[in-house]
């Protein structure tokens, strides 16, 4: 007799989400987490006394609102605070701020380009329509167009009908979005360098691609997805940091009877006669269940936890080709006072939004150039938030925490990541930012630098890729993580995947975890 129906390997937010949904449907679920804490990349820690950080993952991008509702996450402490604006500081003490208020935004854009100010709404409207066109793909298991499985054919039909109903001009626009680079696409719309740079930046996050690499335009869409769920300004910050997202999902899962064990590292998934039958822990314990779900990334799951002899050779080859190439790093700062950006020195609402170091497309592309040849960017792109401005409990009164997402910091750094290179990189980040906010250096009380190598070492994410594999078009939808195995199933009967390495992947969305649970339960999404 198995004590559990389902064992989930990995207590990241997707594993926990999957567990909660399975338990809600009556399954007995055990979650095994290697680390001493749950949450995977989504956790908060008091790194420096009195200062709480979302050490790794730092914003809530597109956490599915149905998950928030269905698992009653607010009851378990989840609150998402909107990031309201994006400030792009520029040379000569100028700046571009994108505000959530329409009139304020238009006036600011017009200062840079009256044409862009007019184009902005039209651009937004088009992307809204595109997002609507793509959205049905996000909440379902992606059908494989080559499959003959009647269920997949039905889904394909549904998706096909959906695309058939799109007006031709939307279909054409969608095709462009799927194939173009962010830079080229934005060139068709805007002339202001600061606006194009900042918008293009959202197309490269987490990916070893530059704004001029084809396929990056598609990611622009993601910023408009949230609107469709009534989650206006979907990009937000979780009260208490991203650890609160995991904690709320875990609490919901436990309320449904899920058992969570930490410091329980799985070394192997047991397979008997082509069927998953259990797991072996590092301490030698064997645990059995008829369904095993892996929240680990595809490489760790199929080239680590499962023996290659249990898998078809072409599948193993596909997983070996699946690209990770972590490209981003984090610098977390504890600050004694707010940074004073010379372009907007007084504290104000602009400090409650994102701050983007992306003055132009060229700036980003140059940052990428260095990374292509194994160096970190000398003048990197940064996406900065000051969570304590939104949630004062993150830092002592009057003091602040600053989270800096940095790109590019290639996993494959020439000479490798060492402690010295990490600090050198940290200095580069602080020096670059201090050009815009000169008081920064003196305000720093504590600095934490997290490189892709650290991400891999601490979280077990291969090559430090924050999305469990690059979000590039050849690895998305029915190709994620491998052709013919995108519906959370694997070549091993009873073994499923629920991590960000499956469709739709990426960010703190929870969609992979929920979709996987639906697939396991045989529920049509």
């Amino acid at each position, binding site marked *: 007799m198995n004590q559990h129906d389902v064992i989930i390997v990995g207590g990241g937010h997707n594993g926990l989400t999957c567990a909660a949904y399975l338990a809600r449907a009556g399954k007995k679920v055990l979650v095994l987490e290697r680390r001493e804490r749950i949450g995977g990349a989504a956790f908060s820690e008091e790194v420096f006394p009195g200062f709480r950080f979302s050490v790794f993952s730092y914003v809530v991008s597109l956490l599915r*609102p*149905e998950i*928030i*509702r269905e698992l009653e996450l*607010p009851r378990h402490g989840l*609150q998402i*605070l*909107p990031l*309201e604006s994006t400030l792009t500081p520029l040379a000569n003490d100028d700046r571009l701020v994108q505000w*959530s*208020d329409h*009139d*304020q935004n238009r006036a600011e854009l017009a200062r840079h380009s009256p044409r862009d100010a007019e184009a902005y709404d039209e651009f937004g409207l088009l992307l*809204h329509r595109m997002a*609507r066109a793509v959205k049905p793909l996000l909440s379902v298991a992606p059908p494989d167009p080559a499959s003959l499985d009647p269920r997949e054919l039905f889904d394909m039909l549904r998706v096909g009908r959906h695309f058939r109903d799109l007006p031709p001009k939307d279909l054409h626009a969608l095709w462009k979005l799927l194939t173009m680079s962010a830079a080229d696409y934005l060139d068709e719309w805007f002339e202001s360098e600061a606006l194009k740079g900042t918008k293009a930046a959202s197309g490269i996050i987490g990916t070893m691609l530059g704004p001029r690499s084809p396929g990056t335009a598609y990611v622009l869409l993601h910023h408009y997805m949230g*609107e*469709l*769920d*009534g*989650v206006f*300004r979907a990009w937000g910050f979780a*009260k208490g940091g991203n650890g609160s997202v995991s904690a709320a999902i875990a609490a919901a899962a436990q309320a449904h009877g899920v058992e969570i064990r930490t410091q329980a590292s799985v070394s192997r998934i047991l397979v008997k006669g082509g069927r998953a039958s259990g797991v072996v822990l590092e301490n030698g314990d064997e645990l059995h269940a008829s369904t095993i779900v892996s929240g680990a990334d595809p490489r760790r799951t199929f080239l680590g936890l499962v023996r290659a002899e249990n898998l078809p050779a072409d599948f193993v080859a596909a997983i070996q080709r699946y690209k990770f190439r972590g490209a981003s790093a984090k610098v977390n700062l504890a600050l004694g006072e707010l940074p004073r950006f010379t372009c907007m020195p007084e504290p104000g*609402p602009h400090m*409650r939004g994102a701050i983007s170091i992306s003055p132009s497309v060229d700036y980003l592309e140059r940052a990428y150039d260095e990374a292509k040849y194994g160096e970190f960017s000398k003048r990197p792109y940064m996406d900065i938030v000051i969570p304590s*401005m*939104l*949630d*004062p*409990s993150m830092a*002592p*009164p*009057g*003091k602040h925490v600053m989270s800096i997402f940095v790109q590019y910091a290639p996993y494959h750094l020439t000479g490798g990541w060492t402690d010295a290179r990490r600090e050198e990189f940290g200095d580069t980040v602080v020096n670059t930012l201090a050009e815009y906010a000169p008081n920064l250096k003196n305000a720093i009380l504590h600095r934490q630098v997290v490189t892709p190598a650290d991400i891999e070492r601490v979280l077990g994410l291969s090559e430090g890729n924050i999305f469990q594999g690059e979000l590039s078009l050849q690895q998305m939808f029915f190709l994620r993580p491998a052709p013919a195995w995108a519906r959370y199933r694997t070549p091993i009967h009873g073994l499923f995947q629920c991590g960000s390495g499956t469709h739709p992947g990426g960010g703190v969305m929870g969609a992979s975890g929920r979709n996987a649970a639906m697939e396991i339960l045989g529920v049509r999404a």
Partner: protein
Amino acid sequence: MLKTTPLHERTAALCVSHAWRRWAGHVVASSYELTHEREYHVIRVAAGLLDVSPLYKYLIRGRDAGRLLDLVVTRNVMRAAVGQVLYTPWCDHAGKVIDDGTVARLDEQLFRMTSAEPSLRWLQDNAIGMQVEITDVSDATAALSLQGPMSWSILQSMGAPSLKYFRITSATLRGIPVTISRTGYTGDLGFEVWVDAAQALPLWDALIDAGRGYGIMPTGLLALDIARIEAGLMLIDVDYVPARKVLIESQLSSPFELDLAWTVNLDKERFIGRQALADEKARGPQWLFVGVEVDWSSLERLYQEVGLATRVPAAAWRMSVPIYAKGEQVGYATSGAWSPLLKKYIALAHLQAPWAKPGTQLEMEITVEHRRKRAAITVVKKPFFDPPRKRA
């Protein structure tokens, strides 16, 4: 001319949006910033500072002060301890609600009552033969509401004594004499600070200064409206018609019909409306005031049919919206909002008793692209949001 509150000098300077709302003959900020969104979140994550001075306030003093209030309101005032605050409705002789507010026992023989409507005449008329002095201190007393999880940290940093839920105390904040009650209209941890109108501006400045490190923000009524709906708290003239403004009988509401059965203390020998309320209790109320949640997928479908992304109201609404069961109208919603916290479209509604049980599936009218549609809704328990910190 509309009146301004004692805090107007500060609030007007901060009101970037130029959006004002009338409240009891005063103007008060609807939102300070261009949109009210951040002000809403501040209530739930930090501390919002609201000017609630337009409330009507009365001091009731004297040997019979407790007896008068006990006669007027439905709750037991005689049993209230010094330092206790009661939320309570009060009724006419037919047991229909006239108003709702708070009664605070400041001392053995001294109370402060707050109300939404002027109440001096009603108090005086019922005090005949009693040894009691009733003073309208509405203009003389300013009130600031500090609401949100950081509200206590701010007051504590200013040396305020700790306070239990629905208790009141006198205190001195940076040299300013005040009374502080742990009350509010948000369903969150929160306090209301009562101060002599002449000291209102220095108190505002002191709170803003002390609150700076705790994320304090001036907050307007649009944000408050969402918070109070999440808290399941009704609003006079919106969710019920006070008995004195009623033109036809069906507009009247009893406390039972407003989900205030818990405030009706029939153990009291005598209070206005007692007999009618005792009869109604025996009969069972015809209507109930409940929370409803709109089913998201149902709403989504209605918008999908016309090719639009689902829309939710940007601000709380206040109107009467029909609710149906199997095609028959069985009630109406009076307040609704998209809860940014719960990611749910919620509403407060009056339903005929047989349809008011939690879990009941009904339909609510939704206008989609100019056409009246019906979305599935579920009756749920109020409050929609009830954080432990509220009482902790």
